[in-house]
């Protein structure tokens, strides 16, 4: 079963790449050259690898957020809004609160996670108390989060003069790897001598990736090995039977949304503390939460699977961004590839039909060996 799923996902990815190649061909580009550019764009330099990991980090967390909710029978479209609220609160804590290093980022991360948890928990509460579908409430909460964040950044105390963004967080709240050391004398000397590390550490490499991996393991453990996970899965699979077995279904809906929200909030917080250092005024949503839905689908809603899925996703997007400048191929082809991958994953039957057609052709052999 599990292996089947894995094969199916690999096949879907292959289909995505093949379709992308056809599109490129039709548009008059050499697909092999284009994919070559993308591969080089991801692995060509230590710097690129760093960037791919940095880009993937928030997607791992929002992916787990969506996957966790899925596993408990909820569709968290609100990862985007929870991400925004998480970033906002992390920036606020990072700028206004004065704390020593190490403690400061921890507090800011927890605050971001908590904010996301409360934001999503509200949608959970509406569902459990009034039966309002979480799909609707979380979509609406996304917009509220976006404009609330913009509103907050516009306040006098918080807005950076002459910039459409908030003040930058204090250095003590940063979660960058060797952030201070990089600019110190000793660091400069070391990096000048070691070209690989210089390149690798050039982008804002941060601890977010490790946090995301730990979160994935924690969520996997909760689902698999705890009574909480048992309850949540029971409610997710069959809330009638869970209720009959004495599980408080309503409470579990709220708890599940809160955990999912905490993960997306944490994603926003790591992005602020590790990469952007500020909250910008946004005209539209950045899409980290929505991409999380795609990551979760590719991962088959498995929290651990979200790590490679997000890396694939981040790699495609980052590598794809090199297409336009180098060979002039449109970046949109990446969205087509991702779309096709999800299309096939969402239609396991189709992949089954295609593979069974292949199987039928070779069926003679299989029959006779039995």
């Amino acid at each position: 079963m599990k292996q089947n799923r894995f094969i199916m996902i690999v096949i879907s990815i292959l289909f995505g790449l093949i379709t992308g190649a056809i599109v490129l061909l039709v548009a008059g580009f050499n697909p092999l050259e284009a994919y070559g550019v993308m591969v080089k764009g991801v692995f060509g330099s230590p710097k690129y690898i760093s960037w791919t990991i940095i880009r993937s980090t928030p997607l791992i967390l929002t992916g787990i957020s969506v996957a966790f909710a899925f596993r408990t029978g909820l569709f968290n479209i609100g990862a985007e809004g929870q991400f925004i609220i998480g970033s906002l609160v992390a920036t606020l804590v990072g700028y206004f609160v004065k704390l020593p290093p190490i403690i400061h980022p921890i507090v800011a991360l927890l605050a971001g996670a908590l904010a996301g948890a409360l934001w999503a928990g509200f949608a959970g509460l509406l569902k459990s108390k009034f039966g309002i579908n979480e799909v609707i409430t979380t979509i609406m909460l996304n917009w509220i989060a976006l404009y609330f964040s913009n509103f907050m950044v516009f306040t006098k105390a918080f807005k950076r003069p002459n910039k459409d963004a908030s003040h930058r967080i204090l250095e003590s709240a940063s979660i960058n790897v060797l952030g201070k050391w990089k600019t110190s004398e000793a660091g400069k000397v070391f990096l000048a001598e070691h070209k690989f590390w210089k390149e690798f550490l050039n982008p804002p490499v941060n601890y977010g990736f490790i946090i995301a991996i730990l979160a994935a393991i924690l969520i996997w453990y909760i689902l698999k090995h705890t009574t909480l996970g048992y309850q949540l899965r029971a409610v997710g699979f069959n809330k009638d039977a869970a209720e009959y077995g004495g599980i408080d279904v309503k409470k579990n809906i709220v708890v599940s949304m809160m955990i999912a929200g905490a993960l997306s909030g944490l994603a926003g917080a790591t992005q602020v503390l590790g990469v952007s250092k500020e909250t910008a005024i946004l005209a539209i949503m950045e899409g980290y939460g929505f991409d999380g839905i795609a990551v979760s689908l590719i991962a088959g809603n498995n929290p651990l699977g979200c790590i490679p899925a997000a890396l694939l996703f981040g790699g495609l997007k980052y590598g794809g961004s090199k297409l336009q400048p180098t060979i002039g191929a449109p970046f949109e082809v990446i969205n087509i590839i991702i779309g096709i991958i999800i299309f096939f994953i969402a239609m396991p039957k189709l992949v089954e039909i295609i593979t069974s057609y292949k199987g039928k052709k070779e069926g003679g052999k299989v029959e006779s060996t039995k």
Partner: protein
Amino acid sequence: MRIDYDTKIIEMKNITKKFGDFVANDNIDLTVHKGEIHALLGENGAGKTTLMNILYGLYEPTFGEIYLNGKKTNITNPSVAIRNGIGMVHQHFMLVETFTVVENIILGMETTQRMGVLDINRATKEVEELSKKYGLHVDPNAKIHDITVGMQQRVEILKALYRGADILILDEPTAVLTPQEIDELMEIMRSLASQGKTIIIITHKLKEIKQVADYCTVIRRGKKVDTVKVADVTEEDLASMMVGRQVSFKVDKKEANVGDVVLKVDNLVVKDNRKLNAVKGLSLELHRGEILGIAGVDGNGQSEFIEGITGLRPIESGRVILNGKDITNLSPKEIIENGMNTIPEDRQKRGLILDFTVAENMILENYHKEPFSTKGRLNHKAISDFSKELIEKFDIRPRDHMHIAGELSGGNQQKVILAREISNDPDVLIAAQPTRGLDVGAIEYVHKYLVEQRDHGKAVLLISFELDEIMNVSDRIAVIFNGKIVDVMDAKEADERTLGYLMAGGGTIDEAK
């Protein structure tokens, strides 16, 4: 003689149907003559419905041929079947609830005047004629949701006849009917057969086969066992052919050793989903060491009653006392912990989490307790040991605690629930429809455990639509009608006629006599 032995109206030869590696039908032959009532008997999952779905064009056989009136026919889809005069009445009716009887019958073959205007008057007349001809009484202008289940079934039969069916396939037709309605249906079947129609009835109820069928083909695990003349065999013969071993029908039980009242329900009122009172002042008392059966036709408040006393549905008024403690409107968890467990009516909706493994299902009520978990961490070893033990004890197949519950057969799913509920050793066990859809072997098994529970001095409340089950298993019988217990009697004094009369709302026992 109404059976025309010269006309083989259906001949299915070497029918094999595979779903992947699973062989649902293995080389089955079936011959039916014109005018015959032919029963198809088999346990659940034996493959009888599959065979009929092949005949009706819903499945294509992997191998095998079908001859209709001696002519080889490829039935690729149901419209081919209908064109060849085959009609099927499914177990779950396919009727549009908000349409009238006539509208449902003509659906898809509407008679129209010019410009596609519906000629409902002509259609009504046609339906009335058809209804008179075969003794299928229906009210042509009534809406489906206003008529009884028995009449809905007659509408389904009329629908098939209206499409020109000469062969009628009835899939488990008596599952939803009252005893009186079953008698009526038997009458209708005889009348149809006497007018030249051929009937195939899928069932696992032996009594009905004896009553109405001419021939019976027994299928076991996808293979045909034999076709027998019903007059030549006994019910016991049929049962052992079906199950493959000797089966006892009589529930083997000692005299009940009745103790104190353990569950007292007083003037209970519970609303249904439409916010109307479904349970209307129901009172009863259940003693230790007895099985109290609640007989009644579906839809008289049984489901709401069970959900009310188990904490799944709010109780409007009245009280439920368990072991002297008021458990009215407590949560399901508290009620379970006070010593009342339930085998739920709908095992796939309430009883099991189908995507969970058998082991995970076994701990549904106790996952938060030692030894299954310590401080919020699941102890997988304790869980699998416990499950393995129950799987062994209750003979659950396959013997694999990591098997997904949804992939078990109905009987084995029920055994999982039974094992779980009985392992809690509750003072009161509520068994709601515990044998619905199960075959003879599994039914025997469930009944054995209910009686065993009683013999251990526990109380069992059995709710069932099967009158035979209620009469065989219970010590006392309460009849529910319209949300109330109409009367209670000793099971030894109960007879089918009186119970049927009470179930249909005829009044109390005294009036019945």
